[in-house]
């Protein structure tokens, strides 16, 4: 079985190593870093905007381009965190704690080298894990019936509720808004129109790509405008000497790296993972490290820990997307939408029917991250200078890009208006601490989740007991309940412990 994987992977390298695909990787990474660096463009909406450009490519080349944009955006987030103290993505927040102090004390080169290298290590660890585990998971998932499928969706969404730092009721509202928006339009089972209230534009429902571009793109611009950000960053210069010097110190932190890799992979597979993973890895490193007291003042270990975990999580998020059809992050959700548009059915059958595609993608992850590491190390000053372009030039250009992106999804001007509505909604929700990721994932997965739910109920004649009818589905549902109720459970535990240690 494992040997088969390596043969498949070897073929994958053959596909991904095609000169055209390597070129796409370079373009993808560069675009991705630009997207990650610019305010208002992030991994999710950047990929969403560029998705229509790939309609005419072969699916393998298309996904290589888009995943490389994702890797590039992940790298780009570190640049803004270290140099400008602005996290490009939520999971880069923990990188600012020690990365920016390092830059302020003139060690920007070291901080960036450490960040990029750790990102690479984390991603690499996660890819090796995907190579070994994804085919097994997929094979296992082939036995899933509708009830098991729904249970997996339930687990995915329940972990959002349990893991996110926002209040559970807000997470649920945001998620359910996504499900409701996904339900708008033609009902696939009965062929009936629902929730359109006679508006013809809503016949096809809400496209999640429009939602992503609006929520993350326009919403972000409005937020940036409110904060009146002026980018006053530190200069960055990376020369081979600094890189070499930093690389020599990094092996010292192998324990931190390994720990962060494991945290990241674990949190990435369960959705909503990357941000908590980076904070968790940072927190644990701070507690364990002998330099822990100095964390926050520019400790290199404080850059290594969160970056490794965030990238391990960001990459590991691809595993459930490929093997189960359940994306672990908004960007993975957009990629999943891409699969559907290219005519591929995500999920366990992908490994059987589209082996070439899957292994080409996995091989491109290896190559893409190597290419990415080299590219970002050599081009940082260029990207740092992009951030120095004043916001009053960047903002209208990004607005134009978002509008073009929204239009090209379906060649429909109504979508551009919807994008604006989603933008205002995104601003409002973000300001009131409603998480956006569950909303996006729910729009993407709404139809499949509903279908699985109705099919299972159909099989059981309407009895909810079908979700507890065999050990497999019961286990997944139980895991989901634990994940969803985790805050309550954790509270109970700490109370119990409080009672036993302090006998009153």
């Amino acid at each position: 079985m494992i040997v088969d994987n390596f043969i498949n992977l070897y073929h994958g390298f053959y596909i991904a190593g095609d000169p055209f695909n390597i070129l796409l990787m370079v373009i993808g990474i560069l675009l991705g870093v630009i997207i990650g660096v610019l305010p208002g463009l992030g991994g999710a909406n950047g990929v969403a905007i560029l998705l229509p450009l790939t309609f005419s490519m072969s699916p393998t080349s298309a996904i290589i381009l888009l995943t490389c944009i994702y890797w590039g955006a992940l790298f780009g987030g570190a640049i803004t965190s270290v140099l400008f103290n602005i996290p490009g993505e939520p999971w880069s927040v923990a990188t600012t704690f020690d990365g920016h102090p390092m830059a302020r004390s003139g060690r920007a080169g070291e901080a960036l080298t450490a960040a990029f290298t750790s990102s690479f290590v984390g991603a690499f660890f996660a890819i090796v894990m995907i190579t070994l585990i994804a085919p097994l998971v997929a094979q296992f998932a082939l036995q899933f019936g509708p009830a098991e499928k729904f249970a997996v969706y339930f687990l995915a969404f329940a972990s959002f509720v349990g893991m996110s730092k926002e209040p559970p009721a807000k997470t649920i509202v945001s998620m359910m808004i996504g499900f409701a928006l996904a339900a708008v339009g033609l009902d696939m089972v009965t062929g009936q129109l629902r929730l359109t209230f006679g508006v013809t534009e809503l016949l096809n429902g809400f496209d999640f790509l429009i939602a992503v571009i609006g929520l993350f793109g326009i919403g972000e611009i409005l937020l940036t405008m409110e904060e009146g950000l002026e980018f006053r960053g530190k200069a960055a210069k990376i020369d081979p000497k600094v890189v070499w010097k930093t690389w020599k110190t990094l092996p010292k932190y192998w324990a931190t790296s390994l720990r962060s890799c494991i945290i990241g992979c674990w949190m990435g597979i369960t959705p909503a993972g990357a941000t908590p993973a980076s904070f968790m890895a940072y927190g644990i490193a701070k507690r364990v490290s002998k330099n822990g007291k100095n964390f926050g003042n520019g400790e290199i270990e404080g850059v290594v820990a969160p970056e490794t975990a965030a990238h391990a999580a960001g990459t590991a998020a691809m595993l459930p997307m490929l093997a189960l059809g359940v994306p672990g992050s908004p960007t993975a959700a957009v990629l999943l939408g891409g699969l559907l548009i290219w005519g591929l059915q995500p999920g366990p059958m992908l490994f059987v029917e589209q082996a070439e595609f899957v292994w080409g993608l996995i091989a491109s992850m290896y190559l893409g991250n190597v290419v990415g590491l080299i590219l970002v190390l050599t081009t940082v000053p260029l990207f740092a200078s992009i951030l120095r372009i004043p916001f009053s030039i960047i903002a209208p250009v990004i607005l134009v890009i978002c509008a073009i992106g929204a239009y090209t999804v379906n060649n429909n001007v109504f979508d551009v208006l919807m994008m604006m509505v989603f933008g205002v909604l995104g601003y409002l929700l973000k300001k009131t601490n409603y998480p956006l990721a569950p909303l996006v994932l729910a729009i993407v997965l709404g139809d499949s989740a509903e279908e699985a739910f109705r099919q299972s109920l159909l099989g059981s004649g309407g009895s909810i007991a079908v979700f507890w009818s065999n050990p497999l589905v019961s286990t997944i549902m139980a895991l989901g309940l634990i994940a969803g109720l985790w805050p309550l459970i954790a509270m109970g535990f700490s109370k119990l412990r409080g009672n036993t240690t302090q006998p009153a």
Partner: protein
Amino acid sequence: MEQAHHGAAAGPKQRAVEIGTALLTMLFGLVVIYGSVIVGFGWGSDGPEAGFFPFYVGLIICICSLINLVLGFREEATGLFAEWGQLGQVLRVLIPATIYVALIPFLGIYLPSFLLIVVFMTWLGKYGFPLSLAVAVGVPAFFYLTLERWFLIPLPKGPIEAMLGL
């Protein structure tokens, strides 16, 4: 958000906005329930009806909005959502952007994009006309060449483009 402590700054309260958002999501939940009820949310002759799933989704939205509403009322009354000045900044982007989007169906994407960039750069960025015009012409031209010429993806066009025969 730290400005809330200075006292001098004024603006809508976080509490009011939280309550408003909760009411808004509740309204949305009610609309979803209503829409599900009119297509039927029960158990039809061939299984669950079209409104079955959305009905419960709407119900959950309403219940959780109620929780958020209560939490919103319990929020401390002093925290600011944003200062008026900050909201003004937001509106200075939002209003041109909304006009921009509203113009696209009539004028295509190129002319409104040109206008948006010029207005933005001269009005908000205080740039001179030469640079603003250069960016405002350059950006749409770049997208025309890459998207329409290279990738053959048509973008919306209006009467001006028709006159030019593009």
